[in-house]
């Protein structure tokens, strides 16, 4: 039996208060009419209006969105392929180097990744812009996709794939018709993870972006480096809102999917 003792209840309450209080404070301050962020002067949506009139922020948001869409899609394709060959591919030349290169970006400090990629782009003469940010983001997002997909691949029954091949599927059809639908949830969450990481990245984008391709985090960072800014509070509140709605929706959907599967399984048994 599992019970929630007072100790566990207290640590959970304090822990979640610590995790959420700063975000709540930020959202509340975003509705402060005062330009001095921490001095309350009544409710206002003024800063949201100013934010949407700020062309520079809108441009940066558009660049960031395009970079994130392209890089997370590329990373999903490459990362899924990488996870598949590592789990199912057996032995091949340089496998250790391959898995090392694949997982290292998970923990490698951003400053090292950013610096090394920038020096590469300069030495091959590639002009810095959206393309270089996309290449850089794909490289580190790939690692996250690979981890998520690997955990799903090792968990599912290998014999399903073998059965498909016994029934006359070639390798590609077996992958497309059997493996892919089963690992699809992991592939989708890998894509979402890559997308969020790309939206969020400041350090690598700072190294690899050119003057015409400023991303939103670079803009936010230069605005808040010296102090707090009411416009950035409004922007943060919007981003927190989007993430909250997204995460709650997906978790409700997966809950419903699990409930449906359990119902179907019960029906199949009776």
């Amino acid at each position, binding site marked *: *039996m*599992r*019970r*929630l*003792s007072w*100790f*566990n*209840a207290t*640590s959970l309450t304090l*822990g979640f208060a*610590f*995790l959420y209080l700063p*975000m709540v404070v*930020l959202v509340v301050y975003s509705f402060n009419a005062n330009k*001095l*962020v*921490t001095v309350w002067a009544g409710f206002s949506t003024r800063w949201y209006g100013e934010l949407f009139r700020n062309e520079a922020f809108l441009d940066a948001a558009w660049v960031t969105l395009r970079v994130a869409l392209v890089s997370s899609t590329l990373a999903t394709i*490459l990362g899924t*392929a*990488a996870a598949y*060959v590592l*789990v199912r*591919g057996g032995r*091949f030349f340089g496998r250790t180097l*391959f*898995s*090392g*290169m694949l*997982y*290292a970006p*998970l*923990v*490698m*400090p951003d*400053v*090292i990744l950013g*610096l*090394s*990629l920038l*020096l*590469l782009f300069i030495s091959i003469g590639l002009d810095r812009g959206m393309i270089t940010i996309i290449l*850089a983001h*794909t*490289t580190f997002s790939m690692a996250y996709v690979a*981890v998520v997909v*690997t955990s799903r691949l*090792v968990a599912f029954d290998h014999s399903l794939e073998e059965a498909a091949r016994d029934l006359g599927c070639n*390798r590609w059809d077996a992958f497309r018709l059997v493996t892919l639908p089963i690992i699809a949830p992991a592939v989708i969450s890998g894509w979402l993870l890559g997308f969020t990481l790309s939206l*969020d990245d*400041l350090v690598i984008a700072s190294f690899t972006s050119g003057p015409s391709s400023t991303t939103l985090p670079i803009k936010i*960072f230069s605005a808040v*480096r010296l102090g*707090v800014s009411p416009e950035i509070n409004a922007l*943060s509140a919007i*981003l*927190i809102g989007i*993430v909250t709605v997204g*995460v709650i929706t997906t*978790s409700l959907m997966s*809950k419903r999917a699990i409930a449906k599967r359990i119902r179907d399984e019960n029906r199949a048994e009776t």
Partner: protein
Amino acid sequence: MRRAALIALPYMWLLALFFVPFLIVLKISVSDYALSIPPYTPTLDLSQGWQGIRDWWAGLDFENFIFLTTDSLYWRAYLSSLKIAVFSTIMTLIVAYPIAYGMSRAKDEWRPTLLMLVILPFWTSFLIRVYAWKAILAQEGFLNQVLINLGLIGEPLTILNTNTAVYIGIVYTYLPFMVLPLYAALEKLDESLLEAAEDLGCSRASAFWLITLPLSKQGIIAGSFLVFIPVMGEFVIPTLLGGSDTLMIGKVLWEEFFSNRDWPVASAVAIVLLAILIIPIVLFIKNEEKQWEKDI
């Protein structure tokens, strides 16, 4: 044939965009600073043929690495990063453990919601979560206002722009990275082991030390790597929350590159940082692989 293509595609990508860039950093770290474009010498001039390669090779030296040892700024920054990374990993572990433990002991129907509550900040922008602390820890910020209104302090505390703020920022932003692996380990723990220990006369505290803690070792190791390694190179947190006396090597590298435009020294700083981190990184990767192999 298809298998070869499937392997080759991600392999080539990683070789070109992960492996080769490191070789370039290594090369530039042994070059010299110059007022030119690109800002270092010697540059490899292949049009000169064999002589060009020989000139290039002769121009390389370890001057930048010697420079790093002579200017105390660098080794103090490495030591200070190491200290901050070690202490903040321990603090994150201490804060995360009770949360992960509480989650793993919660009722089954509660656990997906609790898990979602830990994952949600993880999806929220890192930069914004660090920035949120600026308005809380400032002199006239939220925390000082609350404490003064409660009458606990008379004068506002100076927390922002000190190392304390850096520690708070690190523990806060890296907390989900520690909670999730700990929870994964603690969730698998068989409750009957603890009941058996209690039946055999173990106190709750010693049952925790003898059973729960050793069985959650895997989570502690994975979580500590996930916090320690990136914190060593952290740039955003010391820049936004730390003061002018907060020394961290990620910040030094950034300034060396963007403010001083000294690419060879910035590269040397990166190589030394990588040399420090290579052992933890290899251990982390080995540990991950061991986990997968166990599951297969």
